[in-house]
């Protein structure tokens, strides 16, 4: 506001940079249980507040409170806890494997495990996710074999994708997991198309689109919302706001909009914001949106408020752009610890059982890794054939690719 006669460009900045004290005072956190649970056929304009609040179930003491609580049994919650612990142990081993040169690249979920693990349980068999690169919990929670994931990560002779894809870009139609592109936001509008197809065929299946806070700036995000809104597609439009797009804080993509969820309001799509580190809240909100979609009531936007504790990928060093202790200051806590506390409070879990489960899970991950490594790793042992480069570009290999394959000696 210096010279009133001259323009100046506004470039948003995060509250704090490396060396500073972490500050999340801008993240307004309502009390657990305080946000109402509307009927699924509510008119979007009646729940505009939900796009600016945060639906939470677990309170600071580990109790499940309010209208979104009470949906999951002890067994279901214990399974959820184990899925999150498995994903965390899997990540830790794979980050290490990358450091050891067994793969070129890895992306972990640390701090965000509840989002994909809980969401998966709200879907049915046959529904389809269009994920980004940080939703492996969708596979873990659907009991996709870890060894298959590792075969893909190691690009070995048993890699289901024959060495063609960057590590962690899984694909499993059987498990409702659309092939990950590695490109950003493209899958968001594809999910809407899949959902439209399900509606065209009078099917019962629904789709789930996934995107990160940063990629909501892509035009495909906005196209997806237009198409979902116009055709009332049976799709859940998930936005995982983990605060950071590599080194860029979420304010660069969010701009002047209050929240990412609020993007849905202009399209007439109900939009909810949820505590992404609260397994129970994620499940409850996802279930609400899934029921809406299945009842032909159309799309729902969900913003998961969470925090990316780890680096963006193994090629990233967050200490260059945010305070090292920022994750400890994150006000929504750790999803694994919060669910563990809740289960202990319910009398369904204990410290001892948790420690034992942790050891068992690490052991299972190590066993899977041994098995996968038996089929090779990126630079050692069994690997896909050079022939695999040329296969599968088309259903039928055209003459020019056949000539090139022969030239390559295969």
């Amino acid at each position, binding site marked *: 506001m210096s010279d009133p006669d001259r323009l100046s460009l506004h470039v948003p900045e995060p509250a704090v940079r490396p060396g500073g004290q972490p500050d999340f005072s801008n993240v307004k956190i309502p009390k657990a249980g305080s946000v109402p649970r509307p009927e699924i056929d509510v008119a979007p304009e009646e729940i505009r507040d939900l796009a600016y609040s945060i639906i939470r179930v677990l309170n600071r003491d580990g109790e499940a409170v309010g209208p979104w609580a009470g949906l999951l049994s002890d067994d279901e919650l214990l399974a959820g806890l184990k899925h999150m612990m498995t994903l965390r142990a899997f990540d830790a081993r794979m980050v290490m494997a990358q450091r050891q040169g067994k793969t070129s690249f890895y992306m972990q979920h640390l701090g965000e495990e509840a989002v994909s693990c809980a969401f998966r349980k709200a879907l049915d068999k046959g529904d*389809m996710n*269009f994920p980004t690169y940080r939703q492996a919990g969708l596979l873990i929670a659907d009991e996709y074999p870890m060894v298959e994931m590792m075969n893909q990560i190691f690009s070995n002779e048993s890699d*289901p*994708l*024959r060495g*063609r*894809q960057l590590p962690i*870009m899984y*694909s*499993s*139609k059987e498990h409702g997991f*659309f*092939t990950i*592109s590695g*490109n950003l936001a*493209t899958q*968001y*509008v*594809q*999910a*809407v*198309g*899949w*959902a*439209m*197809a*399900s*509606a*065209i*065929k009078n099917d019962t299946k629904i*789709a789930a689109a996934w995107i990160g806070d940063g990629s909501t700036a892509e*035009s*495909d995000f906005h*196209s*997806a919302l*237009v*198409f979902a809104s*116009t055709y009332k597609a049976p799709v859940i439009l998930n936005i995982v706001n983990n605060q950071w797009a590599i080194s860029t804080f979420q304010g660069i993509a969010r701009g002047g909009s209050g929240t990412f969820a609020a993007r849905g309001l202009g399209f007439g799509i109900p939009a909810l914001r949820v505590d992404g580190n609260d397994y129970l809240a994620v499940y409850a909100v996802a279930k609400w949106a899934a029921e809406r979609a299945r009842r032909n009531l159309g799309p729902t936007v969900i913003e998961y408020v969470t925090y990316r504790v780890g680096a963006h990928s193994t090629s990233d060093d967050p200490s260059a752009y945010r305070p090292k202790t920022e994750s400890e200051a994150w006000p929504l806590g750790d999803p694994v610890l919060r669910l563990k506390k809740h289960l202990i409070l319910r009398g369904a879990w204990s410290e001892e059982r948790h420690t034992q489960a942790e050891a068992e899970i690490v052991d299972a991950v190590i066993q899977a890794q041994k098995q996968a490594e038996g089929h090779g790793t990126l630079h050692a042992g069994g690997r896909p054939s050079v022939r695999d480069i040329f296969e*599968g*570009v*088309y*259903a039928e290999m*055209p*003459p*020019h*690719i056949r000539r090139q394959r022969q030239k390559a000696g295969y």
Partner: protein
Amino acid sequence: MARMTMIEAVRSAMDVAMGRDDNVVVFGEDVGYFGGVFRCTQGLQAKYGKTRCFDAPISESGIVGTAIGMAAYGLKPCVEIQFADYMYPAYDQITQEAARIRYRSNGDFTCPIVLRMPTGGGIFGGQTHSQSPEALFTHVCGLKVVVPSNPYDAKGLLIASIEDPDPVMFLEPKRLYNGPFDGHHDRPVIPWSKHDLGEVPEGHYTIPIGKAEVRRKGSAVTVVAYGTMVHVALAAAEETGIDAEVIDLRSLLPLDLDAIVQSVEKTGRCVVVHEATLTSGFGGEIASLVQEHCFYHLEAPVVRVAGWDTPYPHAQEWDYFPGPARVGRALVEVMEA
């Protein structure tokens, strides 16, 4: 058999495909109730209902992105991009998604979609309604690229494209919609009803993707062309009296290399013609393949005739369009070399 314009042939292809397979859906800008700005989808919504043929928002990336999702579900979308010039917002979806889904998922998911798009100039469309972006597709592995030159081929190739298990870019030369335009813009339009290839079966038939057709047999020089330029090349051959063999590629990717090689080995000379800009155009690929495969048969350097390396102008359209005079000069040049 019936007499059809290329518009009617394209419409008939979609009609036949939709009638045979419930999974075929048609959508795009203005294609539903109205039937498309070129009327290619007229009547399809009335016949098949508005969940099989419908209007889309003006968002090419949304149209192609949703088509990809529908194909992943199991449908066979045949969508219209209103003008080929409008495809750029969808280029990411086309090149990095549609083209690679089979490959990157090792066949777990596939992408059987068709993108129909009116292409080329000749209707005073200016720089944003006249482009020929085929080389931007032929450079992308995983796509098929088809450019018909007449109603009979348009129908057979479009049905083949819709039935194809991979993504097909189907470029419809808009100046050929109503007649076999040979570049003589100052003469009366010849309708398809007066042309052999305007004779089109009403039912189902296909023309294989990847097979070229010789439109004029000749011994002096091979002219490789596609779309509108096939008719321009035929006119140039007649007007110069040079005994050119005119090959209509029909499919650019995959390419019928054998047909080109066979002809050039016979004639020893080759002219490549397209309406798209010259530099890095598809003609460069043809010229290169011809020298790789036919070098010792060549009597003269391969010559390219193409649109100038400028945007497509409005008022000077006919100075830009590579008409029969320019193609004729190239024929003379290659014969005299």
